[in-house]
Every structure is written in C-alpha cells, then in structure tokens.
C-alpha cells in the first residue's frame, strides 16, 4: 500500500497539496506516483514568478522509463521551486512528501475549497483505479 498522509489534499493526476499560512501551498507528487514511475532521473520544476492556472502542465518528472507532466492543482504564482531535485532526482523517490517537494505557490484559493480530494477520497480513487 502506498503512503497517503491524512493532512494533505490530492488530485486525480497524483499531485499532493500541503496548505501553509497566508495562501501559501506546497505541491509534489504522491508516493503512488513515484512508485509507478520508478527510479526518477530528471526533474524539471517551474521558474519562480511563473503564473499558473489550475490544470497547467508546469513540471516534468522523468524516470528511466518515461517522461510525465505534473499539473498545477491550483491557480497562483510560483514562489519557490525545489532546486535540489536537479542534482538529486532520487529525493522524489525517497521522500515524495518531504525533501521531494516540487514547488510552492502563492494562491488566493484555499486547498480546502478547491476541487481536491481528501486522503480518504484519494485512497478510494487509487483502489478504484487498480480494479
């Protein structure tokens, strides 16, 4: 079973969102996603300052096997991106909810209000997907 922290929100495209203070959110890909992709060898994160709309393809994660787009779960402006992933893409495999975070957004949306899934709903979604 993959790890699905209860305090995060999730998308159907396997991103997670961590709600911070004052409209700041942190975004990454889930444990299920990193496991399905396999060993990651290249990660491209969005530039700081870039304006994103929810659903925009804004990052790329490449495993030995294939390249996959990462979609922004929310609308906002990029305030930080994880530069460590350039030299250590394996952080994303090792710690997808911590050191493997992808980028942070400043947003006027609330992760609670946005069309995101709870941990329980995401677990149910994964169970349905594997049927």
């Amino acid at each position, binding site marked *: 079973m993959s790890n699905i922290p209860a305090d995060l929100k999730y998308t159907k495209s396997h991103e997670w969102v961590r709600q911070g203070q004052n409209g700041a959110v942190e975004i990454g890909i889930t444990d299920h996603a990193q496991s399905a992709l396999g*060993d990651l060898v*290249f990660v*491209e994160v969005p530039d700081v300052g870039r304006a994103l709309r929810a659903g925009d393809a804004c990052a790329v994660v490449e495993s030995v*096997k*294939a390249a996959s787009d990462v979609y922004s779960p929310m609308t906002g402006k990029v305030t930080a991106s994880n530069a460590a992933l350039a030299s250590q893409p394996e952080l994303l495999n090792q710690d997808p909810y911590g050191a493997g975070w992808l980028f942070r957004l400043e947003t006027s949306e609330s992760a609670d209000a946005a069309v995101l899934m709870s941990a329980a709903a995401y677990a149910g979604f994964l169970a349905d997907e594997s049927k």
Partner: protein
Amino acid sequence: MGLKTPLYDVHVLQGAKIVDFGGWDMPLHYGSQIEEHHAVRRDAGMFDVSHMAIVDVRGGRVREFLRFLLANDVARLKSSGKALYSCMLLPNGGVIDDLIVYQLSDTWYRLVVNAGTRTKDLAWIRSHAAAYAVAVAERQDLAMIAVQGPNARHKAASLLAPPQQSTVLDLKTFCGAEFGNWFVARTGYTGEDGFEIMIPASEAAAAWNQLHAQGVKPAGLGARDTLRLEAGMNLYGNDMDESHHPLESGLTWTVAFEPLSREFIGRSALENARRSGGPELVGLILEDRGVLRSHQKVMAAGLSESVPAGEVTSGTFSPTMNRSIALARVPFPANAAVQVDIRGKLHAARIVKPPFVRHGKALIEI
C-alpha cells in the same frame, strides 16, 4: 492476462513489477531498475529471457538453408557450439528480425528470435524451410536465463558439476556447450561478460533460486534496456524494423557480402542501398540535462534547413554515465553538431560511435 514464462511465479514472489511485453507478463524491475543495472555492471545480475523463441532447425541441407535465409553467413561457424548474430531480411532488405544462431552440429542449428516477432518469424522460416527439407521445431519446453556481469560466469558455473564447470569457464566469447538437455553459451545483451543458459522449463525455477543464493541479482526488462543501449546494441522494433535495412540500422557489420557467390534473401536490395548511400544509425550523448526518447527529432546545427531531420530510435538515461544517451537515425554527416527537440525545446547533443559502455567502463568522454 498475458503469456507467462516458467519463472513467472518466482518473479512475483521476489516482488517484481510485472508489465506486458509483446503479450508476455514480464518483470520490469524488482524494486529499483537502476540498482539492477549497476549490479550487472559491477557484479552479476540475471534476466528471465524465456519469452524469446528458441527454434531448432535440422536437416541434411540446413546449412545451405540458413546461408540463404540469413544476411550473415553461417559458413563462418566452423565448429559446434559457435554462435553468430544475424538479421533475417525481406527481399527489399527490411529487417524481419535479428537473431542469434548457434551451430549444434552439421545438421542441427538453433535460432533464438525475439518474443514479439515469434509468429511471423516462424511462418517466414517455415515457408522457406520446406524447399530444403529442413525441420523447424519451436522449443517451448526450454526456458532461458541470461546471467550477466563481471562475476556472472563464476557464479553461474556453480549450477554445473565440477568437470562441467571447467568446460563452461573455458568457453570463448560467442561459444556454447551442451550438457545433456542444457545449453550454456557465452553470449548476452548487456555489454558485460556472462552466459545465456537454456534449460528444461521444469528446472528453471530451481536454477534461478540457486543463482539467487549465489548472490546473482534478479534484473528486469527495464535494466535490460538501459544495459543494451549503453552497450550500443539495437532493439528490434526501435532501432530496426521492416521499414529499414541493416545498412541504415548500424548493422552493416552483420551482413556478409562476401563471398559474392552466396545468394541470400535481401542481397540485391542491400547492394543497391550500399551504392546509393543513405541515413545512418549513430550514437548521441545529450550535452544538457534531460532525457532523450525515441521519436524525438534530431536537427543538424549549421546545416541548411532543407536537410531533413533525423530521429531518435532509442533513448534513455545512462546510469553508468549519469547522462542521457540514444541511438538515432540521421541523414547528415556523423561529425555534425546536432540539437534534439525535447518537448519543443532544442537541446545540444553530440554524435558519437557506440558502444557507450563496455565491461563496466564508459568508453566516451563526457
């Protein structure tokens, strides 16, 4: 559910992530593809390659038959146990498949062909065999395990009794030996030393487990692909196919044009192609970060825009070189500086001569 090799249950027990490969349920990796890759480069790994088709061809005129069927010349096999890599061609020179042929005796040869092409291969072989009264038998009773890496041969030799161990350890590259219903050959698809072992399907799981106990690491198709690409070896369906002949697939060395008196299927088409020239298969190293993938376009920097683009045929990340590498079919000179279109952005790459890696060492300076 797809076809299963005799080792399928063992793979599942060992935690393999199973994927469909040409209709077969095969292990992609057992946890980390990159660790499996390094195990083969540094120590010993093993692959279940039982999905490949083993085809025995026998008859008094079998040699004459294979000299007509294959683009390489089995007359180069001077003794039993010797192996040869060859393409099997259409009359227009397109590659039906690539294969290894082993000479087991004067009247008995063994072909190992790709899993995804087995049906068309067998139909093609049979359609020509009849004229030579050659019997064609697919050996579905056999499994095949490739044990590869610098320590692979010594670890694998432990499967055999002591007198046989010295026989297999004395085998030269591209040579094999029979031990009852086992056949052990010093061949592979990784750029490392090792054996490919054909054994009765009923004995496969025991052999696999014994190799595992010797410290041979199970490795999946993922590592097999990165290893073969580092070794500069073609993959059928990517780097060669029925739409491309061997001369534009980096396989000129496998075509025996001499002796001129030997007629073989595809010969006249290849002779025409040799005269007219054409695109070539080359190696690429990406100078930037990123990963080369098949079907990406390759542009020559500084050449006129009328020069058509080339195309990546196989691309991946090289775990040994920590850089992306590829094979590409390009219509421009091999000394051209090139750029590859990766998701709409041009990235600088360098044309190099494969292999990229052999016997654990990068052969090309980054």
